[in-house]
């Protein structure tokens, strides 16, 4: 706490006054104030589309406010562009990854500040420095591979490495943890506290309550581009914070349902991913069941989802309602009644230059008419339905998807899949970047899908979510299922142990 107290007395490191940002069709910020002190960890929260990223971008020099001013060290400053922000010691990890896919890890980490010797880039020291940061983060990858070849999580780690290795006075993390596993998240949060102790100010945007409570000293809440208020953490009760964000009580967060397990819908037998990351895996899921899949990064849980979704080539047998499914071909997989939501939204889900409407209907093309002819009336109707039903915040269905806030993009991706009326849903990190309110809405939808007789598989790195949702949990360890948990056996402890060591420690078993 002491750090916090000192901070309050000093002049704020950065102060935003009455920031307004208008976009065609929306006002993202309507006169928002924000102050952050050196050595303080301030969490900025609010619903999807409430303006958090926009505010962050304004501080980071990526966007210019239409009105309002910014004071740095009490002096009014115009942060013209990202490099100006850097010079002020403001470093930001933006919500969308900003890596150069064809360049190496080393170069991405050192981008814009490659060490020079005798006028020429000193690669050996560049690679050494990159190495060192990654070690701090306890990430063990070659600094010489192009980031294109890394998983989302590792790419996020590279992004983080870049940020913390640049001597920042203010560090902005816009949902930096959203694509990190629990373990990686903990490491990052530990680093954040460390930085804070060193007097670095951290502005942390996140939808994950536990993180805020474990790390932040204050929370500033936005709703619809207006400031709801700032409250001290962890003293403020979660319910109150959530109420500030959503404007109502959420009640039973993860929701629940009358679990009625029906006949077996999905049979997986000896499923192997061609890349060898996942060794033969077998299990079944029944109608009305929600199966959670846990595991560390690289444990093969991602490959399970991708194989079932037809995203990567795989062998083995998969049956839906007794019918064999041809693997490695999304078309057949969908036809067989499997709906898949990939975890890498940017790379494998969004149609970037297209509208919200197109991003929804791309999943329904076959259903929007007969003989390949699309009935735009049906299309418009369904798009409208989906936007309402899944609470997508957009000024019009014609708006370019990439102009939506991160969470709203995710809702579009989920919505188009849920609307397919499939037998089996395979959802990889379904609530990545989604706000608390919408999360519980999505959980409700998953329950609804399940109760309507679908088999739902949720692959997630958020343990609370898994535990809250799943009737049964498979834990992956080194490429194969090392444990299956049901009922009371399901706990952070057991899952954690299995994921890390592949076995449950005796004492836990005793406890349970």
């Amino acid at each position, binding site marked *: 706490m002491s750090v916090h107290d000192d901070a309050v007395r000093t002049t704020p490191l950065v102060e935003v006054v009455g920031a307004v940002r208008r976009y065609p069709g929306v006002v993202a910020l309507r006169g928002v104030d924000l102050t952050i002190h050196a050595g303080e960890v301030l969490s900025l929260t609010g619903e999807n589309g409430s303006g958090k990223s926009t505010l962050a971008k304004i501080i980071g020099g990526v966007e210019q406010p239409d009105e309002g001013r910014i004071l740095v060290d009490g002096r009014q400053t115009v942060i013209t562009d990202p490099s100006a922000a850097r010079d002020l010691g403001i470093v930001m990890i933006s919500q969308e990854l900003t890596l150069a896919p064809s360049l190496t890890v080393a170069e991405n980490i050192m981008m814009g500040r490659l060490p020079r010797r005798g006028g020429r880039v000193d690669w050996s020291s560049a690679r050494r420095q990159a190495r060192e940061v990654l070690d701090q983060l306890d990430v063990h990858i070659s600094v010489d591979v192009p980031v294109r070849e890394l998983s989302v999580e590792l790419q996020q780690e590279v992004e983080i490495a870049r940020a913390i290795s640049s001597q920042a006075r203010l560090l902005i993390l816009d949902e930096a943890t959203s694509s990190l596993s629990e373990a990686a998240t903990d490491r990052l949060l530990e680093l954040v506290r460390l930085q804070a102790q060193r007097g670095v100010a951290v502005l942390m945007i996140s939808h994950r309550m536990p993180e805020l409570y474990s790390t932040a000293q204050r929370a500033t809440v936005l709703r619809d581009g207006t400031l709801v208020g700032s409250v001290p953490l962890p003293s403020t009760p979660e319910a109150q914070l959530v109420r500030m964000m959503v404007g109502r009580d959420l009640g039973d967060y993860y929701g629940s349902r009358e679990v009625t397990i029906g006949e077996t819908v999905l049979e997986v037998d000896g499923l192997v991913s061609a890349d060898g990351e996942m060794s033969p895996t077998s299990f079944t899921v029944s109608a009305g069941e929600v199966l959670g899949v846990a595991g560390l990064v690289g444990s093969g849980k991602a490959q399970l989802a991708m194989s079932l979704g037809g995203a990567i080539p795989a062998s083995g047998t998969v049956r839906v309602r007794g019918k064999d499914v041809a693997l490695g071909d999304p078309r057949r997989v969908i036809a067989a009644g499997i709906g898949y939501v990939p975890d890498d939204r940017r790379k494998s889900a*969004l149609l970037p230059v*297209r509208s919200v409407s197109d991003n929804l209907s791309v999943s329904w*093309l076959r259903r929007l008419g007969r003989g390949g002819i*699309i009935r735009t009336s049906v299309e418009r109707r369904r798009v409208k339905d989906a936007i309402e039903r899944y609470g997508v915040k957009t000024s019009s269905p014609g708006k370019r998807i990439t102009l939506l806030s991160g969470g709203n993009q995710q809702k579009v991706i989920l919505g188009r899949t849920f609307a397919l009326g499939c037998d089996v849903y395979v959802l990889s990190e379904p609530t990545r970047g989604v706000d608390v309110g919408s999360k519980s809405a999505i959980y409700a939808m998953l329950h609804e899908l399940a109760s309507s007789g679908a088999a739902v598989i949720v692959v997630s790195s958020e343990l609370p979510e898994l535990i809250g949702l799943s009737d049964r949990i498979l834990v992956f360890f080194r490429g194969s299922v090392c444990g299956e948990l049901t009922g009371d056996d399901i706990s952070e402890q057991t899952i954690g142990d299995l994921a890390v060591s592949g076995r449950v420690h005796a004492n836990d078993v005793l406890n349970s």
Partner: protein
Amino acid sequence: MSSDQLAAEKRPDSGHGGPPHDAAPSRAASMWSEIQRVSGRSTGVIAGLVILCIYLAVTQPVFATWGNTTNVVAGNSVILLLAIGATFVILSGGIDLSTAAAGAATAMVFGELLSAGVGAFVAVVGTLAFGLFLGAVNGVLISYLKIPFLVVTLGTLSIFESFALVLSSGKTINTFTLDGFEPVYRFALDDVAGVPYLLIFDVVVVVVAALVLRYTSFGRGVYAIGSNSEAARLNGINVARTTLMVYVIAGLCAGLAALVQVGRLTGASPNIDSTLLLTVIAAVLIGGTAYTGGEGGVGGTVLGVLFLGVIQNGLTLSDVSTFWRGTVNGLVLIVAVALGVGRDRGWFRLPKGGTRG
């Protein structure tokens, strides 16, 4: 490409080539929204086109005449047809460098078929089939053998070119007196009530292409692939087949263009106008179709072709010296597009903080 260029080619408020959104189901309305969308992407070109036409109408009395208008149409039909094929390809994220060469090759095939004395119908069908075939060659190499499209179409460009030369050992086939040519000749030449068949044909082709792109799942697939082919694949779109189809369509358009070409010239020549390829691609891009794919449409392409066609026509009428033509041509082009960019960046609005880029 730099984000700025991206910004310029895919402008934030530039709408998109997809289905009409806020449009009532009625055709009229959707046509209107089409126009809005096109104009959104190509203000500059429209403005430029209007200004050009006014200028020419004033300075060149002939310009505004119906006769001259039909000239422009007839004189640019070949470019238009090729450009429509190119639009499909570019929307899907590719580029077809072989399109002009394919045109020449199919033209020669048409000539040979006629000289072989097969009737008009067979000759026409044969030519179109051959066009399809050439397109399929590109398509298969690209979509199934996964050879980069630039390499493939660069290669087929020179193969088709040489094929055209080989067929008649470099000579132009004079089709005028060949029986079977008559109908095609009439088609390229005659009109109903002053409206050339060519004009009608062009309109039909454009409308069909626009409808295919907007109201069929194939068309939507083209946009999806051009926008993010992995996402398209995961949503059950048959990427390989769609890509193949796209190049086949380009081949078919080359076939159509060949027929018009031969019909107008009453001869099939193996020599390719070296500027044709660039003109075609230019027309598509000027029309606001993003060269990175996923965005644009035939509406814009028509604009692009008209724009370039009118410039040429104007240069001839106001007979600008051969040497200076290029300068005028280039300046008009850049300025017109700059107008559009300027509009989107609000150069013409009162200066206000935060014009982005």
